[in-house]
């Protein structure tokens, strides 16, 4: 039994009994040696085909309103019918259900869980006291629920390499549950490097020959099907992939000495912060940013200038525009970083100054957040 495609369609590929293999395991190595007699698949339609005649399935409905509409289980029922599997499908909070089943003494050999993908807002970034962030509480809860399972499989979506896989497995280790990393996939083409997050640069992307993570196995597809899928694809047209991914030619010394560059910027700033004016900081940033296509230096330059935000003036805008127009680090993340730490605060302060006071209601000359009027 295999899981194919994004639509969670499951088909039988061999004459083996459904319960002989675990559907999410694409490799026999990762599957449990002992065929599960009971499996618990949660949260996805394909999970309901968790290769057992005793499969129990539920949806993790933390965002219940959005998911409950999709709770008709058509795919699940179709999959189950195709494979002759009896599925007990339920709708509810899967963690509550698991806790309830645990209290009832129910045990499963394998639990397949797909926790909520990302923290959607700040409120979801909780449990710092336990050292957990974002969607990790859900994973921890999942691992806790699966404490008595023989195997726990988590389908984890992470946007950054840094968060995976250690952050995924740590909660499970705490819960003393077995964790199987079935497959690792990297970011999509429209999910580029987030420059504002340290350590988010994927070395595998820049230097594929040095990649330590093996590429995901490409499923063998029929020629006709591939041709049909190719025909449905949007033509690339004038798409410029360098806008999303830096090639070797443009990466410069991004990976050569990033830590040294950052520490040097920090040292310089600390040494001169009190002595420098905004103009001197801008001159330093100009020297830092111009002539390079190195995003880390661009980020360092914008962060350096951001420390002088109290002295921001509209006369700085042409310089920032020159940075952007110079394509010194041509990617959306750096552009947005410059907008976020430089242009945005300047416009906000200018808006307050235009109203004759700051948000606190005090006069602009005394509130300390003021903008010096442009002389030009």
């Amino acid at each position: 039994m295999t899981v194919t495609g994004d639509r969670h369609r499951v088909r039988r590929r061999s004459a083996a009994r459904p319960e002989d293999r675990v559907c999410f395991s694409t490799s026999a190595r990762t599957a449990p040696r002992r065929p599960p007699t009971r499996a618990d698949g949660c949260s996805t339609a394909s999970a309901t085909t968790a290769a057992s005649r005793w499969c129990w399935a539920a949806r993790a409905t933390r965002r219940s309103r959005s998911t409950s509409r999709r709770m008709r289980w058509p795919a699940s029922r179709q999959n189950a019918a195709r494979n002759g599997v009896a599925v007990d499908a339920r709708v509810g909070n899967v963690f509550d259900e698991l806790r309830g089943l645990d209290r009832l003494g129910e045990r499963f050999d394998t639990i397949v869980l797909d926790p909520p993908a990302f923290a959607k807002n700040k409120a979801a970034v909780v449990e710092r006291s336990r050292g957990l962030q974002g969607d990790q509480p859900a994973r921890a809860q999942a691992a806790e629920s699966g404490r008595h399972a023989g195997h726990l499989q988590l389908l984890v979506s992470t946007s950054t390499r840094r968060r995976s896989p250690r952050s995924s497995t740590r909660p499970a280790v705490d819960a003393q549950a077995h964790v199987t990393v079935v497959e690792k996939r990297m970011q999509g083409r429209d999910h580029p490097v987030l420059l504002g997050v340290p350590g988010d640069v994927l070395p595998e992307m820049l230097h594929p020959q040095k990649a330590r993570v093996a590429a995901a196995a490409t499923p063998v597809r029929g020629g006709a099907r591939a041709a049909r899928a190719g025909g449905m694809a949007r033509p690339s047209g004038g798409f410029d992939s360098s806008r999303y991914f830096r090639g070797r030619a443009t990466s410069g010394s991004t990976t050569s000495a990033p830590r040294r560059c950052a520490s040097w910027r920090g040292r310089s700033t600390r040494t001169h912060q009190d002595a420098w004016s905004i103009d001197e900081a801008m001159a330093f940033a100009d020297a830092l940013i111009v002539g390079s296509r190195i995003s880390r230096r661009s980020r360092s330059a914008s962060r350096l200038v951001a420390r002088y935000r109290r002295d921001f003036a509209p006369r700085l805008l042409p310089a920032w525009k020159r940075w952007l127009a110079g394509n010194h680090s041509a990617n959306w993340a750096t552009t947005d970083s410059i907008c976020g730490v430089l242009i945005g605060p300047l416009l906000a302060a200018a808006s307050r100054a235009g109203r004759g006071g700051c948000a606190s209601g005090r006069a602009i000359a005394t509130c300390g957040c003021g903008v010096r009027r442009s002389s030009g």
Partner: protein
Amino acid sequence: MRVWARDRNMWVRRASIVGLIPRARRGESLDLVYAIATRLHADHEDLIQKAVGWALREAGKTDMPRLERYLRANGAAIPRTTLRYAIERFPEAKRRALLLATRRTA
């Protein structure tokens, strides 16, 4: 920012709208946001269309009826990427209605 929105460089055009997002989020300078968004609708760059959609979505957080009026009035000219970004915060029914109402006729 209006001048930046006409710039030849894509990153400057993107900055012209992204730089206004913090203010749009607070309901400030909405006239400017909508004016620049209108100017950038003809832009074929996907990164510009996404940025405009993002800014419109933020503008809608404080004045959703205005955003809806704007989308209905300019729907045919708005790229679908922008539109879909902009309507993310609307209820599902309204989102579908807006997608239908702003569909371009061949």
